[in-house]
Structure formats: structure tokens, C-alpha cells
């Protein structure tokens, strides 16, 4: 199924490919022993290698290689046992060597795939073209001085994985789903923290439009889009812009563009026009990277259960819908949380409480599952109290609100506030008698056929018992008494 955009002169098909730069989680940099820690004082985590002092030689960090291979395996990709490092040459103030060590023709990871979970519960497979290892550049700060740029090399040399997709996506929603899924896989694997605000995951967006079934259009590349929302906005903007240009009789220039986060438009980066001649050649300082199949297999044996497998298991074992399972496995922490709640309990009830009440409360407080004021054990405790009829579902919502507020276990709150459900038929009897005696006219109307009034009586009884009466018992006794 292909989604088309309607223009003035007919339909257009959108073609999207993404390049994601993901910073590898490691202690030291890709080719030096300097720390990768984010947010330190400028230039305090810089070795002479990172500053490109004359005569300094790169030595590769084996954990960075392992992380790249681990990611490749997580993307079900081909691992190349022989890969080569190349120099990508360009001049910029935060690239002291004048070249970036990257991989061009022979990357460490080849073709793989990512399965997208779409909001409607369907899924779609997008091809991954390649993943290669490269070093990050330093950081230029432009706003500290009116006429100078300040350069911090702390990031210079930090290991990056560049993950390139096939031009398989057709809507901005699919592109957003791709970034979300890739980020989830990286986090499950522990190879990148996926933090887009801090720049440890950055996205370049390639977009073109064409007539359905026609030849590919000329594409533009929008650089360094740093949130999933912006990825979607940049694509939507670029699609509209390209269609307007083409329908106005113009043509698209293949160029690099920037996403303007204040005006929400893409802009041409004119200064980079001539910079595309990178003159790649094999880095003479580094021998080819040769891996043993047994080493790759050993990494494969340590892979965690990944989102797709976990989702399939949740659907099979807990009988959850594809949508619910997809939401729960999106983050490893929420999947683990759910499994703790569901253990030995009704899985559907556990899913409803986790996704409905808890996620709702977390959203409201702007917190992640890791900072949840209600622990998985405590949420499970609440569900136990519902299941054994200690409290009703309605009271449970009040108890839950209190748990969010105080972090206390459900049983303690129920005890302290005396919220235990009244299952004593004598007490319910009395309450019902009272309500019926106080409303003789309504009783008469009910008996005269106005059966809708049943709800009114239930409401009154619940009010009398401060909501603590067991609803099933109330229904049962009330029905019996009204028939008398």
C-alpha cells in the first residue's frame, strides 16, 4: 500500500531514506584513550591523537568494534569479517586532522533490516543498507563571541555508527517509526543511549518526490535533525516544498539543507556546495579490520531478547494485542516493568493498569518509567487487592492516585484510609434498606416499569457506603429487594 500526496497537478509519491549517526557507548574514544563522558569542561577529554598533533597514530578501541558488530547482529545484518578504514577529507574548524576516519567501500556491517511498528498495529520492513564505524568531530560554539567561533574537541574521536537505510519509506510517519524502532534496538543492545537532545543520536533525512511508478526524483539531504518530531516535520516541509517547486515548473537541486528549529523550515546550506568532494582513500595509519567468525558468534550468544521477539512473546504468552505489545516493548524498562506486574496475575489487567493508569500518570508528570513513583511490585499489589475483592475497581483508581502521590504500597493505603470493600451482606442490606425507605416515590416508579432507576439506587448505595460496597453484591441484593 502506497500513500500518495495530492498536488495541484496530480499525485506524488514520497521516497525517504535516513542516515542515523549513533554515538557508541564506550569508556574511551574510537582511536584514543581519552574519555567519552558528556558535559565535561571544554578540551579536558582530548588526547594528542584527538587534537591531531603531528606524528600521533590511531589505535582502535576493541569495545567500539564489538558494539558495532553487536548492533549489526541486532539489525539481523551481514557482518563483514574484513572491513577497511578510509579518510574522508574536508576542512572545518572542529576537525583538526582535516579528515574524518570512516569506512567507505568496505563497511563492517552490510545489509540488514528493521521492522516498523505502525500506530495502527501493522508492521512494515525497511532495509538497512549498511552500518559503518567512524569518529565524531569536535563541537563548534558560535554564540560565545560576536566574531569568533569557539571549538571544544571533547567529542572529537568519539566512536559513531552511521546506519544508512534503504530509500524504503514513503511517509513521514514511517520515518518516525523507523527512528523510534532503531533507537529502541540500540537501547536494548546497550550500544547507544539514543539521547537525541544531547546529540548522541542524530539524523540526516533524504527526501525526494516522484510521480507514482515514475523514475526517482532528485533528492535533498537535511542534516542533523535532532528529534523524532523534527524528523517528521522536516520531511513534511521538504515534501511540500519540492512539490511546489516541481508543480511551478522548477526543478529540485541536489543539495544539503539545514532544519531551522525556530522557523520550522529547511534551508539550503550554500557553503557546503563544493564540499562534496571528499577524496576518500584507505587510511594508511590503520590496517584492515579483520574479525574472527568465532568472535562474532560469541557476541551473538550474548544478545538480549530484542523488541520484535519480545513483542511476539507478549502476544503469544500474555494474549496481548499487537498494539499493546508494541507499546510495552518500545522501551526495555517498560517491558520489564510490565512483566513484573503481570507475573502470577491476570496479564490483561496488568497491561491495562500499566498502559492506562501508570503511563497516563507518568505522562502527566513528564517522567520516564525509570522514575515511576509506583514500583512494579506495588502496582502488582494493587491488582492483587482488586482480584481478591478487597477493593473495587473504582476505589482502586483512588488508591492508585494516592500511590502516585506518596509511593506507598496499595495495601497500606487501603488500611490507613479504611477503603476495604464492604462484602458484609448485612451492612449492604442495611444501606439498601435505608436508600429504599428514603425514596418511596422512586421505588414506586421503578416498580411501575421505569427500570432505568436501577442505576440511581446503586449510586445512592455506593454513596452511603463511600464507594466501598462490593458492586456485585449491591447489584444482587438490590435486584432481589426491588422484586419484593
Amino acid at each position, binding site marked *: 500500500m502506497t500513500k500518495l500526496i495530492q498536488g495541484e497537478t496530480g499525485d506524488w509519491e514520497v521516497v525517504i531514506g535516513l542516515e542515523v549517526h549513533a554515538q557508541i557507548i*564506550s*569508556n*574511551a574514544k574510537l582511536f*584514543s*584513550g*581519552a*574519555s567519552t563522558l558528556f558535559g565535561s*569542561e*571544554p*578540551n*579536558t*577529554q*582530548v*588526547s*594528542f*591523537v584527538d*587534537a591531531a598533533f603531528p606524528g600521533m597514530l590511531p*589505535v*582502535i*578501541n*576493541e*569495545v*567500539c*568494534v564489538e558494539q558495532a558488530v553487536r548492533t549489526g547482529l541486532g539489525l539481523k545484518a551481514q557482518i563483514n569479517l574484513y572491513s577497511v578504514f578510509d579518510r574522508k*577529507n574536508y*576542512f*572545518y*574548524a572542529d576537525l583538526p586532522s582535516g579528515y574524518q576516519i570512516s569506512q567507505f567501500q568496505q563497511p563492517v556491517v552490510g545489509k540488514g533490516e528493521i521492522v516498523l511498528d505502525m500506530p495502527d498495529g501493522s508492521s512494515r520492513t525497511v532495509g538497512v543498507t549498511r552500518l559503518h564505524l567512524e569518529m565524531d568531530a569536535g563541537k*563548534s*560554539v*558560535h554564540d*560565545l*563571541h560576536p*566574531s*569568533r*567561533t*569557539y*571549538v*571544544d*574537541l571533547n567529542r572529537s574521536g568519539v566512536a559513531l555508527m552511521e546506519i544508512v537505510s534503504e530509500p524504503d519509506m514513503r511517509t513521514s510517519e514511517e520515518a518516525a517509526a523507523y527512528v523510534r524502532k532503531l533507537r529502541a534496538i540500540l537501547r536494548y543492545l546497550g550500544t547507544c543511549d539514543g539521547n537525541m537532545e544531547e546529540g548522541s543520536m542524530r539524523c540526516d533525512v533524504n527526501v525526494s518526490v516522484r510521480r507514482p511508478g515514475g523514475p526517482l526524483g532528485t533528492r535533498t539531504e537535511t542534516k542533523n535533525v535532532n528529534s523524532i518530531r523534527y524528523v517528521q516535520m522536516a520531511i513534511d516541509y521538504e515534501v511540500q516544498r519540492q512539490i511546489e517547486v516541481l508543480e511551478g515548473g522548477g526543478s529540485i537541486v541536489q543539495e544539503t539543507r*539545514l532544519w531551522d528549529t525556530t522557523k520550522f523550515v529547511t534551508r539550503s*546550506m550554500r*557553503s557546503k556546495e*563544493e564540499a562534496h*568532494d571528499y*577524496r576518500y582513500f*584507505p587510511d594508511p595509519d*590503520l*590496517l*584492515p*579490520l*579483520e574479525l574472527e567468525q568465532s568472535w562474532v558468534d560469541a557476541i551473538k550468544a550474548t544478545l538480549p531478547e530484542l523488541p520484535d521477539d519480545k513483542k511476539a512473546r507478549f502476544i503469544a504468552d500474555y494474549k496481548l494485542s499487537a498494539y499493546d505489545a508494541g507499546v510495552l516493548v518500545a522501551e526495555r524498562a517498560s517491558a520489564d516493568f510490565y512483566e513484573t506486574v503481570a507475573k502470577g496475575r491476570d496479564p490483561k489487567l496488568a497491561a491495562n493498569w500499566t498502559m492506562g493508569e501508570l503511563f497516563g500518570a507518568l505522562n502527566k508528570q513528564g517522567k520516564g518509567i525509570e522514575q515511576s513513583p509506583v514500583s512494579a511490585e506495588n502496582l502488582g499489589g494493587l491488582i492483587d487487592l482488586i482480584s481478591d475483592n478487597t477493593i473495587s475497581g473504582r476505589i482502586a483508581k483512588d488508591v492508585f492516585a494516592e500511590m502516585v502521590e506518596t509511593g506507598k504500597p496499595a495495601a497500606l493505603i487501603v488500611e490507613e484510609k479504611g477503603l476495604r470493600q464492604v462484602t458484609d451482606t448485612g451492612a449492604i442490606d442495611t444501606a439498601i434498606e435505608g436508600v429504599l425507605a428514603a425514596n418511596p416515590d422512586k421505588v414506586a416508579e421503578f416498580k411501575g416499569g421505569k427500570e432505568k432507576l436501577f442505576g440511581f439506587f446503586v449510586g445512592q448505595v455506593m454513596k452511603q457506603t463511600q464507594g466501598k460496597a462490593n458492586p456485585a453484591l449491591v447489584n444482587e441484593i438490590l435486584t432481589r429487594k426491588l422484586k419484593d
Partner: protein
Amino acid sequence: MSLDKATVAKIAHLARIKVPEADQEHLAGELSNILNFVEQLNEVDTVGVQPMTSVAPHKLRRRPDAVTDGGVRDAVLSNAPETAEGFFVVPKVVE
């Protein structure tokens, strides 16, 4: 293979080396001579031969993932023409 003047100017620009126009013609000849000399290698049949990456049978050395370097800001900045607050300072380079 021979280079023309325009190619010399382009290479010079990419390398950020200033080559006056008067020198470009001459340089084009010199660079062409170098290329022609190296092109003799094309006479050797290398079909199916892997590129030689090292004379001795070395493998790529790897380092453990340990922080062993850094924390030498003064030394790193010592050759910079201009610094401020721990940063290198350069003319404004903004898009």
C-alpha cells in the same frame, strides 16, 4: 593521464593551498608526469590479487576500552594561536 589547469585549481582549493594562476599551467605538467609514471603499474595484471596492506604479516592492533589519556588541556591548547576559557578560538564559521 594528464591534468588540466582547472583540475589543478580545484585540487589546490580542496587542499586549501594557494596556487597563483601563473603557476597552475606548470604544476599541471608536473602532476601529469607523476601520474604517468605511476600509471606504469597498470601494466601489471592484478586480477584476483588482494591489495597488500602491510609488508610484514601484521594484524590491526586493538586497545582495551580504558581511559588512559586526556586531562592535558594546557598542552593541547599550547600551540593554538588564540584560546579563551579553555576553547580553541577561530574566526567565525557559521552557516
